[in-house]
C-alpha cells in the first residue's frame, strides 16, 4: 500500500456507485488536495464489500474504520476532523458485523472480483426494455453534458486524451478517427437517395455502428445490445454531435434476433423521449438512427464491405484510400465504430479522460470485454483492465481447466488471430503485446484449449471458416485460402506430405502480403501461429500419421483394453454400425475395418475400457 499514512478504499460496487460513490470520491480527492494531504493519503476504489445497504462506503486503512452512507456534503468535515485533526467522525462510522458472511462476497470471487466494468457497467442491473431504468442509473447524463457544456471539438479532444482505441479489433485511436471525419470536406450532392431498407434521409456526414460481430465464439457486442442498448445509443449520439453527423446506422447481424428486438424497442423509447430526432434535449442538435440487418456474410464486418451492403451493393471490400472518413456511405464522410467502442464513450464524457487513461497500460487504455469460452470452468463475459495477464484471465477469472485437464493454448482474435501457448501465459493483454506474441486482440473472443484439442484441426477449422466467408474479389484470399484448406484437410486425414509445413508457412506469408482486405490478410494467422508453437503436432500428423490429441478421425483408432473390459456388452449394443463383437463376460473387440470413429463406445463404457489413440 505504499508509504501513505492512510489509504482510503472507496467502494466502487454498482450499488454504491448508483448512490453517488464516484461523486463522493471526487470530493474526497479535492478536499485532500485542498489541505495538501495528497502525499500522505491515497484514495483508491475497490470492489464491493457486501455492505450494499450502507453505501457509499469508505474504509480507512490501516485503522480499519468504516464510514457509511456518505454524501458529498459529509466529506469536507470528515477530511478536516479525521485526517487533519486526527479525530474519527463517530456519527458517520459503521461497525460491520463481527462474524464473516457465510457466503463469499462478489469481490472475493475471482470471476467477478478481477473484473472492472465500463462498457458493461449496467449489466445484470437494469431491464433493457425500459429506458427509465437506464436513466435511473445516470443514463443520458453524458449526452446532456456534451450537448450543453461542451463543443464538438472539446468532445473529440476528450476522447483523444482518454486514449480510447477501436474495440472491434484494429485498435485505431478513436478520437483521431472522429477528427478525420469531422474535418473531412463535405462532398457533392446533398440529395443523395437513401440505401438499403427504409430510405434514410440524406445527410452530409454519417456514423455507423458495426454490430456484425462475425468471429465464432464472440458475443461481447450481442451482450451489450441485449442487456444495455442505450449505452450504445448514447455513445452514438455523443459521437454524432462531435463529428457533425445527422444520421446514423446500426448494422446488426440477423443472427441476433433478441438483440435486434431490444435495440428496436430502445430506439422507439428514445424517440418518444426526444432523445432521437429533431432538437434533442432542447438543443438544436438533431440525429436519428436506422437499423440494417446483415445477411450472413462475415466479410460485412469489414467496414467498406459493410458500407457496400448498406448501399444495397455486393459486400466486397473497396480500395482504400479513400477511407470512409473521407468518402464512405454514398460517398459522404462516414465514421464507423464497433459497439463496445461506442459504449465506452458516455463514461469517458461523464468521468473524464484522466480517469479513463488511468486504467490500462501506456498504449492500451481502459478495459476490454472478452468472451471467455472453451475448456475453462467459468465461461462467460469478462471485462478487464488492459494489461492484465492471460494467466490471470484463464486461471483466476476463468477458474482454470475443468476435469483436471492440462492447459494447452488460448486462441484470441477469432479467425484472424492466433494461439498463445503455456509458455506465454504471462503475456499482458494489450494490443501490442498480443501482436508480439503472434496473435491479435481482435474483437475479444478468447477460446481456451486443453490437451484434447488438436491444433492442426484448430487451424483447419478457422481456415475452413475464412474460406467459406471469403468474398472472392481477390485471388490470394479466394484461391489461397482454398488451397491452404486442402493442404490442412489432407494433413488431418493422414495424407500430409513431408514439406507441407514449409509449404503452409510460405503460402501463408504470401497470402498475408498480397490479399486485399483484413479477412485475407489475417486468414493465415491461425495456421502460422499453430505451426510456430505446435510444430510437433503437425509433424506427428505428417510423419507418423498420428493425432496426439486423439481428435482427427482418420488418424485415431478405438480399441478395447482387455485389462478393464468386463464383457458387459453395453458397447456392442450401442455401436451404430454393429462392429463390436464378444461373448458375455469376455473381452470385446472392435472391427477396425467397420469402425466409423463415432466415439459411442467410449462414451457408454462404464469401466474405462475403451482406448482412443
Amino acid at each position: 500500500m505504499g508509504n501513505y499514512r492512510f489509504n482510503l478504499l472507496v467502494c466502487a460496487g454498482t450499488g454504491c456507485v448508483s448512490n453517488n460513490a464516484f461523486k463522493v470520491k471526487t470530493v474526497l480527492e479535492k478536499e485532500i488536495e485542498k489541505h495538501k494531504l495528497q502525499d500522505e493519503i491515497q484514495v483508491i476504489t475497490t470492489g464491493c464489500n457486501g455492505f450494499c445497504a450502507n453505501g457509499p462506503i469508505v474504509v480507512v486503512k490501516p485503522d480499519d474504520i468504516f464510514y457509511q452512507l456518505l454524501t458529498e456534503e459529509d466529506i469536507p468535515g470528515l477530511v478536516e476532523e479525521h485526517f487533519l485533526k486526527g479525530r474519527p467522525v463517530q456519527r458517520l462510522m459503521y461497525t460491520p458485523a463481527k462474524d464473516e458472511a457465510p457466503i463469499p462476497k462478489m469481490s472475493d470471487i475471482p470471476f467477478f472480483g478481477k473484473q472492472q466494468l465500463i462498457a458493461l457497467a449496467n449489466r445484470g442491473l437494469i431491464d433493457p426494455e425500459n429506458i427509465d431504468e437506464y436513466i435511473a442509473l445516470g443514463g443520458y447524463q453524458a449526452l446532456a453534458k456534451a450537448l450543453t457544456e461542451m463543443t464538438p471539438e472539446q468532445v473529440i479532444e476528450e476522447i483523444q486524451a482518454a486514449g480510447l482505441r477501436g474495440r472491434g479489433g484494429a485498435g485505431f485511436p478513436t478520437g483521431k478517427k472522429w477528427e478525420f471525419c469531422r474535418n473531412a470536406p463535405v462532398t457533392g450532392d446533398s440529395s443523395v437517395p437513401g440505401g438499403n431498407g427504409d430510405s434514410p434521409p440524406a445527410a452530409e456526414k454519417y456514423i455507423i455502428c458495426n454490430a456484425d460481430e462475425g468471429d465464432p465464439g464472440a458475443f461481447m457486442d450481442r451482450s451489450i445490445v441485449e442487456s444495455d442498448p442505450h449505452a450504445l445509443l448514447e455513445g452514438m449520439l455523443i459521437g454524432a454531435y462531435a463529428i457533425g453527423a445527422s444520421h446514423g446506422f446500426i448494422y446488426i447481424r440477423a443472427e441476433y434476433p433478441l438483440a435486434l428486438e431490444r435495440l428496436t424497442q430502445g430506439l422507439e423509447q428514445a424517440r418518444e423521449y426526444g432523445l432521437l430526432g429533431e432538437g434533442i434535449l432542447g438543443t438544436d442538435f438533431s440525429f436519428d438512427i436506422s437499423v440494417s440487418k446483415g445477411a450472413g456474410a462475415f466479410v460485412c464486418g469489414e467496414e467498406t464491405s459493410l458500407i457496400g451492403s448498406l448501399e444495397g451493393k455486393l459486400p466486397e471490400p473497396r480500395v482504400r484510400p479513400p477511407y470512409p472518413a473521407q468518402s464512405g456511405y454514398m460517398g459522404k464522410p462516414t465514421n464507423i465504430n464497433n459497439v463496445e467502442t461506442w459504449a465506452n464513450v458516455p463514461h469517458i464524457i461523464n468521468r473524464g479522460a484522466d480517469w479513463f487513461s488511468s486504467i490500462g497500460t501506456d498504449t492500451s487504455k481502459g478495459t476490454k470485454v472478452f468472451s471467455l469460452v472453451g475448456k475453462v470452468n467459468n465461461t462467460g463475459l469478462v471485462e478487464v483492465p488492459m494489461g492484465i495477464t492471460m494467466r490471470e484471465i484463464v486461471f483466476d477469472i476463468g477458474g482454470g481447466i475443468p476435469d483436471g485437464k492440462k492447459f494447452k493454448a488460448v486462441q484470441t482474435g477469432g479467425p484472424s488471430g492466433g494461439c498463445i501457448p503455456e509458455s506465454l501465459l504471462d503475456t499482458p493483454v494489450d494490443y501490442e503485446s498480443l501482436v508480439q506474441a503472434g496473435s491479435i486482440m481482435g474483437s475479444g473472443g478468447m477460446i481456451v484449449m486443453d490437451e484434447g484439442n488438436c491444433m492442426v484441426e484448430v487451424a483447419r477449422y478457422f481456415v475452413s471458416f475464412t474460406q467459406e466467408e471469403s468474398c472472392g474479389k481477390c485471388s490470394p484470399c479466394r484461391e489461397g485460402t482454398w488451397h491452404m484448406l486442402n493442404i490442412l484437410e489432407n494433413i488431418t486425414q493422414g495424407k500430409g506430405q513431408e514439406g507441407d509445413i514449409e509449404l503452409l508457412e510460405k503460402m501463408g506469408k504470401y497470402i498475408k502480403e498480397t490479399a486485399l482486405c483484413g479477412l485475407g490478410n489475417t486468414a493465415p494467422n491461425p495456421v502460422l501461429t499453430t505451426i510456430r508453437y505446435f510444430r510437433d503436432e503437425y509433424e506427428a500428423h505428417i510423419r507418423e500419421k498420428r493425432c496426439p490429441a486423439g481428435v482427427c478421425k482418420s488418424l485415431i483408432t478405438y480399441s478395447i483394453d482387455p485389462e478393464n473390459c468386463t464383457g458387459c456388452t453395453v458397447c456392442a449394443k450401442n455401436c451404430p454400425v454393429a462392429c463390436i463383437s464378444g461373448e458375455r463376460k469376455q473381452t470385446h473387440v472392435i472391427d477396425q475395418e467397420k469402425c466409423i470413429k463415432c466415439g459411442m463406445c467410449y462414451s457408454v463404457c462404464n469401466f474405462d475400457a475403451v482406448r482412443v489413440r
Partner: protein
Amino acid sequence: MAKITIDGRDLEFEEQLTILEAAKKLQIKIPTLCYNEHLDPYGGCRICLVEAATQAAPERSRLVPACTAPAADGMIVVTNSERVLASRRFIIELFLSRCPESEQIRKLAAEMGVDPNGQNLDVVGQYLLKRAPKREATNCILCGLCVRVCQQIPERYALSLKERGIHRRVTPPFEKVAESCIGCGSCAYVCPTKTITIEEA
C-alpha cells in the same frame, strides 16, 4: 509540384495520379489484369502490387496495388524488388492453377519467368501447379472487368457476380438471358482471357 520516385527515377506531378499512371509516364511497365484505363480501378487481381514507402520511413515499405494507390509527394516506389517479384509470381501461379489452359495467363506467366509447366518453381509454385486439386475448367480469372464495363459504359447492368469465395462466378441476373443486354460486346472486348465471346443470336 509533388515528386514521386519509381525504381530510382523521379517524376514531378501536379494532378491526382495513381502509381500506375505515374509509372506509365516514366515508361515503367507494371503488369495488370483487372485494370482498364476507361473504368474505375478495382484492385482485385493483385498482380500490379508494388512496394511503396514514404521518405520519413523508407525501410517500412508496404505492398500496394499500383492501379489504385494514389501517388503521394515524397513516395518511394520499387517495382522490381525480390519482394515484389515473389508476390507477382505467387499471383500468376494462383491464376495458372485456376486456369491452366488460358493462353493469355500462360503467356503472362512466361513473361514473368514462371514456367507454366511448373519447372523450377519454389515449394508454393510446385504445389499450385502440380499437386493442387483440379477444378472445373475455366478461363475466367474473376477480374470483374465485364461486370464493371457493363455498369459503367452502356450502364446496362446485364452481368453480375454471384456467390462468394471459391464459388464466385460471372452470370447475368438470376442466370437467365439478361433483358437489359444490348449486345454491345464491351464485355467480350475487355475480357483479358477471352472467356466471353460474342455469337450470332
